[in-house]
């Protein structure tokens, strides 16, 4: 079975694991697209490269535009200058033409001869820097040729320097500048170019240009400028005929365009960068170069054309400029683009790296999460395993213990008995340990649920104290409990678990304390704050009773006078708490509305004066299986699991546990726990057999407590107060007597005690026998009806002391500590002779209680196993139940068809066909339907007759731990019992259940 359980468990763990994986795998965007990351990177790089190119292109285009603009402006500037210079020269030639017409034709005889002309032109050559020279050719008609040749003494020659053949007209050069003297007597009309020029010039009357040609002298490219000279003045708008007839000759000059442009460009900056070409584009299909190289070099991609107007409308010229070199690579653009690309690349890489990193971290995270889930599952599995194993160990251990008990009943030699007893003690310890482990495992597995039943906290504390009273008395340590009045009498909570915590803490204290005291104090947590606030005040005026305890060396105002780790429990604060309570007692009663808050937080302190916890071990006190050190466990025994369980339980109760400890001084463990307040009307239901009712017969009695230690006195007073006794405290016997009044006069101020309780220490330390005298004195002087009863309080008392006490007047009784209200009550009853009302019905065992619960109940047992069925039926029958059986879920369903008269149903879980869960689900469905029908049908009168169908169903299962209580509840079951039935378990399940349904019980 164990294995089966384990298997099932693994399965559930696996399922949970899957679920967690499912829900927690919330992939982020990056995680989801992890495969795309490199592609994203690539894409990014490509985008970056593209953008870089764009930037480069943009910047480059800018550069080009600027370059082009520069080129354009340069070119235009050059063209303009060239044009200006040219036109200046043309004007001069014009002026020369006018000069010739004025002085050669209008004067008679002519004022100009070759000599004059040459000199004049030579001297004015500076005004025509562009012209290599000027010459004048006269118009000679063929008829005048003879005269002309004779007059000048030479014949007209052609350009080839041969005598000219006969033509209509000639234009022989008669005057020439010295540089052109070789032209003399040459007929200009014989050259094709010149002839055309001459004809065009005399027709238009303007300067005309030839197309460029190599000049005779310099072999530079040049053009010839020709101007007509007219004989007579012309009319304002002469016709071409008139112009031709009036023509007397022609002034011509050769422009050396090449040197002209060379000079010009030389004057301008940036000359080196440009390549300038000048063309004659009269015939646009065949531009003739005037300047520059015919074959083109330089940057062909960019050029600028500027128009040139040299004043001859027939000829068209233009200037084309280029850069000498190709546009240089734009380094700024290139660097900018490159830098941009690099930055983009880096950013991309960083993003990529970040992405990769995120993916990695997330992967790690998921892995960790998975591991965590696994670890948690393993932890749960461990707890389950522990629980299962513990459970399995318990059974044989019970056998061992039983056998040992039987063995001890037989006749044994003392050695054998000793062995057997040791074995039994060990066995019991083991069982206790296993139970603790089981508890812890249950808590860890989240299976432990706290009850919420009303219980009397004070009586539980009394019970715990009584457990340890023997031990504490034996060790001679004071054990005391004090519960503040503000703590409600009845609270709702889990008494068993509360008791477990207290028992554990007190048990530890008892174990580790050899002298001094153990003090359990309970008060409302809210009071604590007030107390701390009030502490300063107390310190200021607390000096008055400080001198009391200084007699025996170092004394502390604690319960036993020993130093305690936490001073909060010392009298200084404690007094304040009590005073506070007394002050508020009236007010608080009025303020019951204030107490209406549902929850009350209690603070429980357990203070001891034991060996304390070494500082180094203090932080692992609550770790399971950790003791202060290994020697501790050797010396004192124990496993160290108790505190960790207590911690878990305290946390389940909504509180916290902590401690203050000083080695060799003691420890104070304190914890808080939240309980619900119990509404008053529930008190009646609460009376459980465990809580003893305190007798009320002592109400109104008066007592004096004689104790020099205020804390201890307060505790005694607390217990007496619970019995309804009015208490005064005196620090010694003298004060007592003073309090009672010397002459016992019954004035209101004086206190008439029925009882005097004297602490043994006070009596011993006080004047020996003095009491006797006082008492006698008292007896005589006081006219009392009855002497107060004298009672001695002692932790431990020797026979001699006891006799001594008796003789000293404590004839009445000695109450052994630790004090418990019920025990005090019993003693007082004995002393005062007040009859005790018989307490009845308190010794009912679980068995008979079960019987009372189950008697006459009709119970259905559902199990497919005949034997199991019979055994369950037998067990239930024994408690007087009326049992019916069903062998399957279906049969049970049939039997539980409404209406039926079953009071409860015990259901096996594992059954073929229809298991217990399914059967229960169907039964609940059936009931719900029926309930709805009833409630729907009966509206008005239904309220009284309304009966909710809900048959209690308890699961029967072999594995209690694994039973998954939740699963049972989920399908509508009310609880579960272990199989085979254990009386205790059955009792718990049934009692819990029938109590919550008191109406059906009756």
């Amino acid at each position: 079975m164990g294995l089966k359980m384990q298997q099932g468990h693994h399965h559930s763990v696996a399922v949970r694991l899957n679920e967690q994986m499912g829900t927690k795998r919330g992939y982020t965007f990056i995680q989801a697209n992890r495969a795309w990351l490199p592609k994203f990177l690539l894409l990014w790089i490509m985008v970056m490269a593209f953008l870089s190119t764009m930037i480069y292109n943009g910047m480059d285009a800018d550069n080009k535009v600027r370059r082009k603009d520069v080129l354009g402006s340069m070119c235009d500037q050059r063209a303009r200058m060239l044009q200006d210079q040219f036109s200046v020269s043309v004007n001069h030639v014009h002026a020369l033409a006018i000069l010739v017409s004025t002085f050669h034709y209008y004067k008679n005889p002519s004022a100009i001869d070759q000599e004059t002309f040459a000199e004049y032109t030579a001297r004015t050559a500076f005004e025509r820097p562009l012209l290599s020279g000027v010459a004048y050719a006269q118009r000679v008609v063929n008829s005048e040729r003879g005269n002309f040749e004779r007059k000048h003494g030479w014949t007209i020659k052609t350009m080839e320097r041969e005598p000219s053949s006969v033509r209509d007209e000639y234009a022989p050069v008669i005057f020439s500048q010295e540089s052109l003297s070789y032209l003399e007597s040459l007929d200009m009309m014989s050259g094709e170019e010149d002839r055309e020029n001459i004809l065009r010039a005399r027709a238009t009357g303007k300067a005309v240009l030839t197309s460029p040609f190599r000049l005779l002298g310099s072999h530079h490219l040049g053009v010839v400028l020709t101007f007509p000279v007219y004989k007579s003045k012309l009319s304002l708008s002469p016709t071409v005929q008139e112009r031709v007839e009036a023509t007397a000759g022609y002034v011509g000059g050769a422009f050396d365009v090449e040197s002209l442009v060379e000079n010009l460009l030389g004057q301008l900056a940036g000359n080196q960068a440009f390549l300038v070409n000048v063309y004659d584009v009269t015939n646009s299909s065949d531009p003739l170069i005037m300047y520059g190289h015919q074959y083109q070099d330089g940057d062909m991609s960019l050029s600028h054309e500027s128009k040139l107007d040299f004043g001859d409308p027939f000829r068209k010229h233009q200037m084309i400029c280029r850069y000498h070199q190709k546009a240089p690579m734009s380094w700024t653009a290139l660097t900018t683009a490159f830098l941009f690309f690099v930055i983009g690349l880096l950013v991309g890489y960083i993003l990529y790296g970040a992405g990769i990193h995120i993916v990695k971290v997330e992967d790690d995270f998921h892995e960790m999460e998975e591991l965590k889930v696994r670890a948690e599952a393993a932890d749960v599995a461990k707890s389950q395993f522990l629980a299962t194993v513990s459970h399995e160990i318990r059974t044989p251990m019970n056998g061992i213990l039983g056998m040992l008990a039987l063995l001890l009943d037989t006749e044994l030699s003392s050695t054998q008995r000793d062995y057997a007893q040791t074995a039994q003690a060990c066995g019991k310890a083991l069982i206790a340990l296993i139970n603790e482990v089981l508890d812890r495992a249950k808590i860890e597995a989240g299976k432990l649920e706290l009850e919420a039943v009303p219980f009397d906290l004070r009586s539980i504390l009394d019970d715990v104290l009584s457990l340890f009273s023997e031990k504490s008395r034996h060790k001679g340590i004071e054990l005391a409990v004090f519960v503040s009045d503000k703590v409600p009498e009845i609270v709702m909570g889990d008494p068993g678990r509360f008791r477990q915590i207290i028992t554990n803490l007190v048990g530890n204290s008892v174990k580790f304390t050899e002298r001094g005291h153990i003090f359990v104090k309970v008060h409302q947590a809210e009071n604590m704050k007030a107390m701390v606030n009030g502490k300063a005040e107390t310190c200021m005026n607390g000096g008055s009773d400080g001198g009391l305890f200084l007699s025996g060396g170092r004394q502390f105002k604690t319960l036993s006078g020993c130093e305690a780790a936490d001073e909060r429990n010392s009298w200084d604060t404690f007094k304040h708490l009590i005073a506070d309570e007394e002050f508020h007692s009236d007010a608080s009663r009025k303020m019951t509305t204030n107490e209406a808050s549902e929850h009350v937080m209690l603070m429980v302190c357990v203070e001891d004066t034991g060996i304390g916890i070494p500082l180094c071990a203090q932080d692992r006190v609550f770790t399971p299986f950790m003791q202060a050190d290994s020697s501790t466990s050797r010396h004192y025994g124990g496993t160290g699991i108790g505190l960790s369980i207590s911690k878990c339980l305290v946390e389940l109760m909504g509180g916290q546990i902590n401690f203050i400890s000083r080695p060799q001084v003691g420890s104070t463990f304190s914890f808080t726990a939240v309980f619900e307040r119990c509404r008053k009307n529930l008190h009646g239901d609460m009376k459980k057999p465990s809580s003893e009712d305190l007798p009320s017969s002592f109400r109104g009695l008066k007592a004096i407590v004689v104790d020099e230690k205020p804390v201890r006195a307060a505790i005694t007073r607390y217990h007496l107060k619970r019995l309804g006794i009015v208490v005064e405290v005196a620090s010694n016997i003298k004060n007592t007597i003073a309090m009672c009044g010397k002459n016992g006069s019954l004035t209101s101020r004086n206190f008439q005690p029925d009882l005097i309780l004297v602490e043994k220490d006070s009596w011993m330390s006080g004047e020996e026998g003095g009491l006797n005298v006082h008492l006698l004195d008292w007896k005589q002087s006081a006219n009392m009806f009855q002497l107060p009863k004298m009672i001695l309080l002692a932790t431990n008392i020797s026979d001699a002391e006891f006799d001594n006490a008796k003789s000293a007047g404590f004839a009445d009784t000695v109450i052994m500590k630790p004090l418990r209200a019920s025990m005090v009550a019993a003693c007082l009853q004995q002393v005062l002779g007040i009859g005790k009302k018989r307490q009845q019905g308190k010794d009912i065992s679980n068995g008979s209680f079960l019987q009372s619960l189950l008697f006459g109940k009709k119970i259905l047992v559902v199990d497919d196993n005949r034997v199991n069925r019979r055994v369950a039926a037998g067990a239930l029958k024994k408690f007087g139940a009326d049992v019916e059986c069903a062998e399957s879920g279906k049969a049970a369903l049939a039997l539980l068809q409404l209406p039926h008269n079953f009071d409860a149903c015990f259901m096996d879980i594992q059954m073929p066909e229809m298991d217990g869960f399914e059967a229960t689900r169907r039964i609940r469905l059936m009931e719900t339907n029926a309930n709805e029908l009833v409630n729907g049908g009966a509206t008005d009168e239904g309220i009284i007759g309304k009966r909710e169908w809900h048959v209690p169903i308890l699961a029967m299962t072999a594995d209690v731990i694994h039973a998954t209580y939740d699963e049972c509840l989920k399908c509508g079951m009310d609880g579960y019992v272990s199989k085979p039935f254990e009386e205790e378990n059955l009792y718990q399940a049934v009692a819990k259940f029938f109590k919550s349904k008191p109406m059906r019980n009756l």
Partner: protein
Amino acid sequence: MEVGQLQRRLVDYTKSLLTEGILDDQFSQLQKLQDESDPGFLVEVVSLFFEDSEKLLNDITGALDQQSVDFKTVDGYVHQLKGSSASVGALRLKNACVAFRSFCEEQSLEGCLRSLQEVKQEYYNVKNKVETLFKMEKQIVAAGGSVPKTE
């Protein structure tokens, strides 16, 4: 034999069964359940147990003889047997069943067959012992004594 002697023998025998682990506390519980109102209770339960168990053992043997063994069915039978043996307190039989079930889960035919032998052995053992016990009780009753209560 004297009644007292018989009674002591019965007590010793019962104790020995408990010590050997053949029976456990549950059996004692059943004994306690048997009182005047239900005198034949224990005998009835035990004979039911024997009947059931023999049938189940047959079923298991049959199921394991099959060509292809359906371990789930076998497991079901063994679960039944385990439940009833737990109910009567046949501890060792129960433990054998637990072992058997683990083999069923492993689907180990060999282990199952071995376990079956073990279970059978434990079953006949407990049957034998309990029958002896009853016989002794009968003897006591026949001798005019009353069956002593354990503990």
